[in-house]
């Protein structure tokens, strides 16, 4: 590079200066040309087109107004409306056309006494702070008589107009709130992401749940209304109209009656229940308890109500079905047993002796039954939920085989149900532990994994899906909430010995019906055959930090779980139930649900 720094000759300097100057002249000429082009355009608009544009601006002019589409309604599987649009009357304030703001507000209070002074003064402040040309809606729904009274006195209120709007309502309030989600005011962030002309005239958007997931179906396309108005903005008449295309009505797979029945069973409990129709993957009920009222969010939730929901120790805003991650506890045992006999780690008839614990590497892994279950084979291990049997079995299987055999059942993966933000849960493996904990896998961890403890976490939805795969004897059907989609079988879990399904399912049936079964106490006189498995999950709680461990007995902190399906021969429902930190058992609730739904089914036929 250095040798390039040489002195320039006089000729070079002269040539260079001339070249640069020529380019400057050319640039100048180019700019003049473009400026003349702009000037020509301006002359065309302001001189030649003056009369045309003047009359458009000064005379009556045509403006376009968006006609918001009607949002699609949501039905349950029996055509019951669970999200509706309700026509309401409210007042629209056009600040620049209001002559005397103070007087208008006083008159308004006289006309509509229900409209409290506090509410009005709050709105008055908002209106005062806003730009002169904004239009604001009063956050108040006028009754029909109030609307009629305002309409007949509207001449007193220039700049305030009575408008009819459609407001989203959820007629069942808290019911299925975690599935439906809600709509709410479009915020700045959302506004930037969406196509503004698709949302012209609309001020709400699906925020959560089905309302968000199927926003593209529910929203519709706005129409266009051409309005002729005079120079002061007053509407003279309406011209051409392109009607809005309403959003699509959608039907969910939910059975709102079943959903409500379950919600009553779970009242005041922290719990989650999922009910699936195994052969179609249709979600019949999706209960996360406690819930919240989505109607609160539609007009924008008040600070007070939102704080109350946030600070509620039962955490109603959490979607326990989708995002609650619980150790599966003993409900995992049928899956482990199936993997073991399928891979011929053990024969179903092989027995072990259970002294009430397994001693391994100086550590005593205890059975829930202190004195042990005696001689135990696979059938008895499931029926009586013998831990020691599975401790021993897991050491023969190893974590790799457990991980490989449980993966097809969907543990540790999202179910891909039609809702956003699903949690994955954790199906532990060597590579998972290396990645997350940066540590080796220890055999002690395999032992507790076999009874669904340790790192193992599942969501209630995953458990229900896995149960329905059991009920289908290996057919994996995509779980879904939208009725109008075809049943899709993702694949069938291949199995060497087809009888192995029967062996596991028989054991689960006896868990419910056999005198020694862990769920037998709740199933006396059941008019149909049900297969199930109980479980208890220790320690983990959604709000663990808020508990003082010494004050609360261990038993109270355990979660109770149950998975099951019925009837055994021709499964109509698969259920997963999780009750958090409660002495209430999950099994009787699942059995009640099965009873209720199968009866409902037979009544229909």
């Amino acid at each position, binding site marked *: 590079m250095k040798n390039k720094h040489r002195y320039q000759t006089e000729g070079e300097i002269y040539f260079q200066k001339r070249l640069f100057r020529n*380019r400057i002249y050319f640039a*100048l000429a180019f700019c003049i040309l473009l400026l003349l082009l702009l000037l020509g355009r301006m002359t065309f608009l*302001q001189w030649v087109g003056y009369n045309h*544009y003047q009359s458009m601006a*000064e005379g009556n*002019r045509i403006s376009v107004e968006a006609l918001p589409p009607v949002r699609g309604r949501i039905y349950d599987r029996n055509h019951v409306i669970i999200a509706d649009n309700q026509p309401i009357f409210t007042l629209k304030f056009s600040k620049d056309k209001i002559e005397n703001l103070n007087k208008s507000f006083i008159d308004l209070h006289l006309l509509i006494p229900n409209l409290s002074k506090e509410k009005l003064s709050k709105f008055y402040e908002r209106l005062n702070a806003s*730009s002169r*040309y904004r239009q604001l809606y009063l956050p108040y729904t006028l009754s029909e008589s109030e609307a009629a009274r305002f309409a007949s006195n509207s001449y007193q209120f220039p700049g305030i107009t009575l408008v009819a709007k459609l407001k989203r309502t959820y007629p069942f309030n808290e019911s299925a709130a975690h599935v439906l989600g809600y709509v709410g005011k479009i915020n700045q962030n959302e506004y*930037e992401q969406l196509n503004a002309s698709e949302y012209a005239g609309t001020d709400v958007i699906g925020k959560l749940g089905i309302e968000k997931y199927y926003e593209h179906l529910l929203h519709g396309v706005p129409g266009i209304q051409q309005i002729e108005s005079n120079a002061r903005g007053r509407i003279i008449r309406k011209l051409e109209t392109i009607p809005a295309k309403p959003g699509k009505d959608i039907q969910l797979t939910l059975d709102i009656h079943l959903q409500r029945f379950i919600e009553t069973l779970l009242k005041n409990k922290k719990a989650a229940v999922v009910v699936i129709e195994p052969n179609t993957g249709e979600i019949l009920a999706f209960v996360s308890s406690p819930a919240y009222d989505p109607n609160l969010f539609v007009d924008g939730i008040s600070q007070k109500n939102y704080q109350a929901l946030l600070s509620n120790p039962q955490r109603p805003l959490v979607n326990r079905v989708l995002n609650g991650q619980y150790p599966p506890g003993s409900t995992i045992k049928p899956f482990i047993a199936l993997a073991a006999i399928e891979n011929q780690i053990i024969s179903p008839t092989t027995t072990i002796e259970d002294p009430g614990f397994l001693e391994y590497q100086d550590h005593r892994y205890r059975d829930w039954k202190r004195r042990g279950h005696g001689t135990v084979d696979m059938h008895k291990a499931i029926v009586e939920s013998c831990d020691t049997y599975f401790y021993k079995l897991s050491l023969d299987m190893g974590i790799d085989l457990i991980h490989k055999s449980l993966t097809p059942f969907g543990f540790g993966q999202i179910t891909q149900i039609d809702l956003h933000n699903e949690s994955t849960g954790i199906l532990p493996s060597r590579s998972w532990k290396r990645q997350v904990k940066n540590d080796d896998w220890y055999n002690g961890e395999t032992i507790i994994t076999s009874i669904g403890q340790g790192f193992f976490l599942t969501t209630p939805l995953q458990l229900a899906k896995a149960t329905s795969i059991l009920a289908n004897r290996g057919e994996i059907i995509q779980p879904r909430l939208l009725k109008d989609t075809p049943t899709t079988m993702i694949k069938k879990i291949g199995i060497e010995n087809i009888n192995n399904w029967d062996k596991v399912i028989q054991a689960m049936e006896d868990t419910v019906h056999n005198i020694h079964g862990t769920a037998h106490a709740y199933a006396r006189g059941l008019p149909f055959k049900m297969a199930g498995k109980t479980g208890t999950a220790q320690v983990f709680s959604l709000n663990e930090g808020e508990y003082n461990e010494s004050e609360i007995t261990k038993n109270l902190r355990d979660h109770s779980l149950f998975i099951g399906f019925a009837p055994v021969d021709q499964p109509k429902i698969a259920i997963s139930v999780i009750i958090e930190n409660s002495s209430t058992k999950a099994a009787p609730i699942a059995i009640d649900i099965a009873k209720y739904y199968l009866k409902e089914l037979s009544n229909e036929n």
Partner: protein
Amino acid sequence: MRIDLPQREKVYRQKKGIWFSMHLDSWLLLGIFLLIITGSLIVYSASGSDLNVLIRHLTRVGFAFALMLFFAQIPPNIMRVYTPWIFLVGTIMLISVILFGEIGKGAKRWLDLGVIKFQPAEIMKLGLPMMLAWLYSHDTFPPSPKKMLIGIALVGLIAGLIIIQPDLGTSILIAMSGLFVLFFAGLSWRWITSSIAIVAASLPIIWNFYMYDYQKQRVLTFLNPESDPLGTGYHIIQSKIAIGSGGLEGKGLMGSTQAHLEFLPESTTDFIFAVFAEEFGLIGVVALLTLYFLVMARGLYIASQAQDNFARLTAASLVMTLFVYVFVNIGMVSGILPVVGLPLPLLSYGGSSMVTLMISFGILMSIHTHKKLLTS
């Protein structure tokens, strides 16, 4: 170019007046003042006489003006030394904005440095042309084809980094500011015409594979405003009504009915020219365009009087970039160019582009007032 002459530290200071001794150019300063005053009046009018908006605008103008004063004090030689480093930092920031940037309007443009958030692309509006000017600062014009190719590669790199943010409009404008340097350095006409031909030929490919739907939508709307009467098409129609109804003399200050009845979108920023044209008419428009032309002509004069290649190329390309902004904004508002969200220099409600613009004026003034006396 390095001409070894006995360095006489005698500068023009003694001969030229007070402005010069403060490293300011009185003619540029006058033009800037007139434009800023016009802009402030229109911002006040278009905001519906909102004093708060005006105060915020003036605060930003004041900040930008202070930066201009600051940059005018830095001699071009020192700027040249720092240019490659600034360019390097800017490039790293562009890459990090792609990796960690904040998302706004579906595009990653902002970099959050804790204290401040800003768009690294803004740095490149100055960084890229100055980098190219640095590249050719020791060459005889026109530089060798090899160096021209290096320059084109740099332009391509930066434009590419901004396109994937994605921000097509800014990317094109920054690429143009770089290409102006090549033009002023003496890129041969044959190259210029053939590259224009190549760009024209590749347009269909860009359209099909590299443009986002919202960008396509804008172009389609431009070609047929009626197709999107609820979106930007409607804005253009309203903007044309505003301009046209201004007529010869305009409706007077605060007389814009279009902006006041909220027919006009973004009336204090991108569409401020429509408000100006409505209130001041064709006469005002002619005066405004003349004012812009004079500011530019003064800028090109400064470039032609500059003493070394770096100063020459920097000055000329900054002036041309300013012109392109003016042309594209007015063209867009009056409906001869597609809507590409771009403010009108010195008139629009102040934003980050106002800061960049005032810095470039500072650089121009510095170039003009830091000369060595070259009489031998």
